[in-house]
């Protein structure tokens, strides 16, 4: 009898633990199954469905229409090119800044504050600021006019240049912090050792810091590229209706109530970007 109750004692928490996993996963599944998994499946269903709302039969016409139409294809190409330029711009600006933060600990806090400060303020406010800065009679164009004459004024708003400048400003903090984190994780000992062994500052940067920061550069680039390719707020405000990126076409199709076409465009975007996102998640898990 004594052994029986002892077994019962040890068995009880174990059955409790078994129940615990489904119990703890219940709240999350109650949110994600009906409001994320099912909506995504429905979106895919609508993208291949016939009829006006896309529930009848099966058709790939919409994908054929998207992939056969130069309007959509050029929007797609331009979106990817813009994302590439944004990632390259963020990279070029961030690598020296992250390296400076690594070498000058006293400057870290003000730079991090300047990087993160804009992120806690609504993106609409930041875009409004850029509209003011880059407008035809704004400070940037006034400076250009002062230096090169009135004819040199640039139409930033409603053109690619304005969208890309703003996109770089919006996404650069993610890139810079990612690179700085990976540079910092190698410790200051490595750079000091290289210097002691006679490497110049330039050599330390090129042969020691940059290779060791490769993971941060990779993570940051993938993150910035995918966030840039899927953003529609920035092109919507800065493009002034003249810059059509792929995510904006999705929004336009939806506002014109062409839901199956919008769904097909969204699926194309997802298929193109998901491998990239998976890559970055794996990188993050490994880090």
């Amino acid at each position, binding site marked *: 009898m004594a052994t029986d109750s002892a077994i019962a004692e040890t068995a009880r928490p174990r059955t409790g633990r078994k129940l615990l996993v489904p119990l703890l996963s219940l709240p999350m599944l109650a*949110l994600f199954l009906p409001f994320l998994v099912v909506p995504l499946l429905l979106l895919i269903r609508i993208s291949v469905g016939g009829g006006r709302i896309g529930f009848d039969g099966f058709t790939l016409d919409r994908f054929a229409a998207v992939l056969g139409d130069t309007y959509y294809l050029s929007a797609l190409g331009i979106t990817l090119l813009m994302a590439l330029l944004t990632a390259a711009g963020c990279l070029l600006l961030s690598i020296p800044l992250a390296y400076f933060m690594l070498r000058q600990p006293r400057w870290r806090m003000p730079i991090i504050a300047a990087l993160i400060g804009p992120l806690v303020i609504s993106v609409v406010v930041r875009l409004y600021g850029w509209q003011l800065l880059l407008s035809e009679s704004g400070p940037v164009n006034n400076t250009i006019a002062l230096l090169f004459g009135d004819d040199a004024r640039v139409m930033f708003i409603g053109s690619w240049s304005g969208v890309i400048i703003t996109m770089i*400003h919006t996404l650069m903090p993610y890139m810079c912090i990612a690179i700085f984190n990976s540079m910092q994780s190698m410790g200051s000992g490595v750079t000091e050792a290289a210097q002691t062994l006679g490497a110049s500052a330039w050599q330390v940067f090129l042969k020691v810091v940059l290779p060791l920061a490769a993971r941060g550069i990779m993570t940051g680039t993938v993150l910035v590229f995918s966030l840039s390719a899927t953003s529609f707020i920035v092109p919507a405000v800065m493009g002034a209706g003249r810059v059509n990126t792929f995510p904006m076409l999705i929004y336009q199709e939806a506002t014109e109530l062409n839901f199956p076409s919008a769904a097909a465009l969204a699926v194309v975007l997802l298929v193109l970007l998901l491998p990239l996102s*998976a890559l970055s998640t794996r990188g993050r898990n490994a880090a």
Partner: protein
Amino acid sequence: MSATIMRAIGKVYACLMIVFLLSPLVVVVILSFSSTSFIAFPPRGWSLRWYDQLAHDTAIRESLLFSIEIAAAATVLALLIALPTAVLLVRHHFPGRTALRALALSPLVLPEVLLALALLLYIQNGLHIRPSVWTLTVGHLLVIFPFSLQLISSAMGDLGPELEEAGITLGATPIRAFWLIAMPVMLPSIAAAAMFSFIFSFDNVAISLFLSVPGNVTLPVRMFELANTTNDPSLSSISSVLILAGAILMAFLGRFKLFDGVVNARQ
């Protein structure tokens, strides 16, 4: 000698980057004190007229209150769901754990436009209901959930199970041990998770735009619409108020060394 030059170049570069990062905010604050009804730099005169207009703008005030309501509701729900999910993912090993984690973090990797469109189609053509405050809250909840989960999970991982196990060995029930030992230690992280969830919900545009509720517009969506249509400094006063709120928040975050949370929640 060349090292000093390099350092000087570095400092100039850092200053230029700080100017680049902050200039769109500074320019908005300057404009908000302009006295002219057209946009000019530098402003031709100074006044508080745009703040006066803001004080009498009931539409903006209603949008602000609506945004706060949605963000508060979404934040409370996100914390309530993230807490058991974090316990599950950090403390338990079971088949399907990786898949569940990937699902919980999926809103981070899914394009926001796609998520917003999928929800809209589901509400309209799946459930056949009208977009309401509730559907909008659920949309925000999905977007902010991964941030809450990441912050709470990492705090729980840092804490480790040992203290609670000691409590259980000394006779406390697991729930009591969690409540009395883990919760007080994790409270700062939970507060940070709440703060970031609130900010990211409050600032969201994409979900709010797709799932907009007739008669109720969130503040960022109203500002988004005004930014595309108006051509006077009227947006600058409300923007400056939001910048001031952000600055206060940054001072608070700096004080408690929480800067990492803003960016690391995404990575």
